[in-house]
């Protein structure tokens, strides 16, 4: 189910091995799925936490940076979110959510809480240029195609649905702030976000997102 579990992004971390393993993990060892990794984290498996970071650290940091527009704050948000995951993995239930969804929920909430606390709200979703050492070629291709699918789906949403979703998710605005910013009644904002997310879900499914 999980795109990340099967993507080349994950392959780079094979070969890390837990100190208690008597037999070195072979490079052909089957990949653990994202869900298996979270369940291992619940058993205090540090190696599994590292592997989750290797799979989701970049997207988590990219998201946190987009929301916070500050490298140090973004690092704090990601670190705190991963520690929440470390402590809270026991409450994860795979029948309820994909591990990637569960994990990114922590990251997003932490980043939004931080940006609200810093009172550094953006007036619009900021576009930031990638920097730092980039991913390897294969990773970049996978990451880009996933990104392009989501960006394309977002573009296909009617503006009246896309705007509140983007401002909420990437800029951390509350629904009341959205109503004020977009000059619409709160009820309208609520229903546009709901309809927009439903539609986004359909668009993503049509584009093959998550079934790679």
């Amino acid at each position: 189910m999980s795109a990340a579990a099967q993507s080349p992004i994950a392959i780079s971390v094979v070969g890390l091995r837990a100190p208690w393993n008597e037999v070195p993990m072979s490079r052909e060892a089957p990949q653990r799925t994202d869900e298996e990794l979270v369940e291992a984290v619940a058993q205090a498996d540090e190696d599994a936490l590292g592997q989750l970071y290797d799979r989701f650290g970049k997207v988590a940091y990219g998201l946190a940076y987009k929301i916070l527009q500050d490298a140090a704050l973004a690092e704090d948000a990601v670190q705190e979110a991963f520690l929440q995951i470390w402590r809270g993995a026991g409450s994860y239930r795979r029948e309820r959510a994909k591990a990637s969804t569960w994990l990114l929920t922590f990251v997003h909430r932490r980043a939004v809480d931080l940006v609200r606390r810093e009172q550094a709200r953006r007036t619009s979703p900021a576009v930031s240029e990638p920097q730092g050492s980039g991913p390897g070629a294969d990773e970049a291709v996978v990451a880009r195609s996933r990104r392009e699918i989501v960006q394309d789906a977002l573009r296909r949403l009617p503006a009246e649905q896309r705007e509140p979703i983007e401002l909420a998710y990437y800029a951390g605005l509350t629904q009341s702030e959205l109503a004020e910013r977009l000059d619409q009644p709160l009820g309208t904002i609520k229903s546009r976000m709901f309809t927009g997310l439903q539609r986004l879900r359909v668009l993503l499914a049509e584009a093959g997102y998550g079934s790679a």
Partner: protein
Amino acid sequence: MSSDPHDLLAAYALDALDDDERERFEGHLADCEECTEQLAVLREPVAALAYAAEGPVPRNELRNRIIEGARAEPRAAVIKLPRRNWALGAVAGVAAAAAALAIGLGLWANSLSSSLDRERSANASYRQAAELLTGKATARPLVGAKGSLLVAQNGRAALVVCGLSGAPSAKTYEAWVISGKPPEPAGLFRGGDGCSPVLLTRPVPGNATVAVTLERAGGRAAPTLPILFRAEAT
């Protein structure tokens, strides 16, 4: 000002509720299976939005910071519970799992946000708990929540829990003592602001684990999974 909490699903999924709205919605969510299901559906496209963010790449140090941070946490491996001995089966477990996920998220968000207040409140609560126990007690860290399990030499014990969201209406937190037998109920409490001491209603042997679950008001004879947090007595 619509008061139908179902209206808030999308805003909640997008983290577009303020703290009060979020807390109220999580209270509702714990009791609403339909909301829980709908939320799970909405969260998929929401999580996908993360991939469109196009941020820079993190520094390599961040990975080390995270692993070192995890290593520094007081953390024991999760105990395996004798699930088949429990009176309640998987049906209750699924509903409770959803509730606990919601509460877990809220709980952790809260627990990171007001550490100063909590520290002050914790000191007062530890003193109170120590008085309740009337004797020297050892403190063991909670795993899954902020706070401690205090165990006196005679086995009397208290939980000091900090930053725990108040239990939703018609629900209660219930403590359990687990030592090689089916879990035994050890007291109900509601959680809420700051830190509060909870005197356990049964003694805690040295080999025991104290665990806390969310239950219907009035409590149950056997716990509903999952465990929200716990501590080992030794």
